[in-house]
């Protein structure tokens, strides 16, 4: 299977490696881990892992994963999606999975652009950045995926960087252990389109610049029930780390309890 199809310097490979290390350090049985992916560069990664995998339709990975988890609650289900896949066409599926608090780990590979289809504007493209469909700069303001997920009811929300692979591994481990909907917005990079159109350099430069655009949120601040929207908005840069954590009944268990012992 290797080498994989991603472009040279694409951050997605680093993120996949961190996820694999997280699964390995938790000693999960590969046969009981399922990776559900949508469509896009990030979602291609499901094809390279030796777990149970499901390559779903565009944006529908959270919906497929919900069905899978309900049918086979004993599986650890990981959703791999991109910013275009998860926030645009699949936006609805994502917010409803969060609202239900179903026990999934959702990794959103955020490279601020549609990579696979040729560099179109995504819901996360920063205002003013260039893309194929915005040659004069993107006029729309972008989504902050983490604030969206907190508002939608996700019970574990974090942001990680491809540039910090060990921290990212630990975020994945915490997300995997979290009993409920865990969401991690992973800042990856797309040197091929976003980097090239915006003159941000190639892989190394884009990775190195991630540190400048973000501030880590310490564990003390993160232990507060929720980072206030205003706080996140006034932060000088994107906050990273665990941004939100709460306990709420998990959907699979609620449903099983409702059906009594006789789950079909």
């Amino acid at each position, binding site marked *: 299977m*290797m080498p994989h199809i991603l472009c*040279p*310097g694409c951050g997605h490979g*680093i993120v996949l*490696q*961190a996820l694999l290390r997280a699964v390995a350090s938790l000693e999960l049985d590969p046969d009981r881990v399922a990776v559900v992916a949508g469509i896009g560069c990030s979602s291609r990664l499901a094809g390279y892992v030796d777990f149970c995998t499901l390559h779903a339709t565009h944006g529908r990975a959270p919906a497929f994963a919900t069905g899978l988890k309900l049918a086979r609650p004993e599986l650890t289900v990981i959703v791999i999606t991109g910013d275009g896949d998860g926030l645009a066409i699949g936006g609805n599926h994502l917010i409803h999975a969060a609202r239900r608090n179903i026990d999934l780990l959702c990794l959103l590979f955020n490279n601020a652009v549609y990579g696979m289809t040729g560099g179109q504007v995504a819901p996360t493209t920063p205002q003013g950045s260039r893309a194929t469909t915005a040659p004069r700069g993107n006029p729309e303001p972008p989504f902050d995926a983490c604030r969206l997920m907190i508002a939608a009811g996700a019970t574990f929300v974090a942001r990680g960087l491809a*540039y910090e*692979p060990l921290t990212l591994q630990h975020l994945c481990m915490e997300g995997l252990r979290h009993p409920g909907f865990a969401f991690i917005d992973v800042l990856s990079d797309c040197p091929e389109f976003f980097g090239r159109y915006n003159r941000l350099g190639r892989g190394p430069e884009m*990775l190195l610049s991630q540190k400048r655009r973000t501030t880590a949120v310490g564990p003390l601040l993160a232990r507060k029930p929720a980072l206030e929207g205003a706080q996140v908005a006034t932060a000088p840069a994107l906050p990273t780390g665990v941004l939100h954590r709460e306990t709420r009944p998990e959907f699979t268990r609620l449903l099983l309890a409702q059906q009594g012992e006789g789950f079909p």
Partner: protein
Amino acid sequence: MSEGSVLIVGVGGQGVLLASDLLATVCLDAGLDVKKSEVHGMAQRGGVVISHVRFGAWVHSPLVEEGQADALVALEWAEALRWSAFLRPGGALIVDPVQIVPPAACADRRTWTSRYPPMDPPSTGGRGPQLCLIPAQALAKAAGVARAANVVLLGALSTRLDFPPAAWEEAIRRLVPAAVVEANLRAFAAGRDADPLPLPPPGPRVAPGGERRFAVAVVSAWCKGCDICVRICPQDCLRLDSLGLVRVTAPERCTGCRLCELLCPDFAITVGEEGGAVVV
């Protein structure tokens, strides 16, 4: 001794705070007034972990002043040296001569050669301290829980204080997690009975650690020449060749930091240790 001042020092994670809690509990149970004050934080990064314990019929200040401590219990050699000025002349210096090199003292990241202080015994003016070297970590390991070096040293300390062993054992039962109480009691007994090690001869500094070499393996068939590893390597070990594939050009400089492995998007690099590990 119905009154006294004890300093307990170490590096992060060695159990300085638990040790001082145990001592304070024993004193309280004996009906004494106790004051305890501690500083903890990142000793491995050059900060300090120290706990002052003062006890007596009536204690006014929680702080032990320089030259006032009756005993200094140190879980690490350099920490013993750092705080030895706090001992009163003739005070007891009970120390585990293990050496934990703080990163800041490391002079060469590949060999771990360090500016770690020599093993010469410290002196406090005219009358030197009663130096008592206890191999606490080794004894704790033998007792079944490697982390109980702090309790081994308390065992050694207890022979110099007036509290009966039963009072210490009672405190251990109360404060130590239930699963390791028995092992901690064994560690305490081992510390009470331990024969101090002989003093090492004064002499040139020791450089703990040893040569470590790392092997950086590249799967060229997977490398896409993205330049990330080359740019990220802090030791400048890697280069792209004329085909745009990565080559390890200076393996002897590699410190095994694994940054290249962690940040290669194409799983093309693995870093391993050459010829087995040398304990640092």
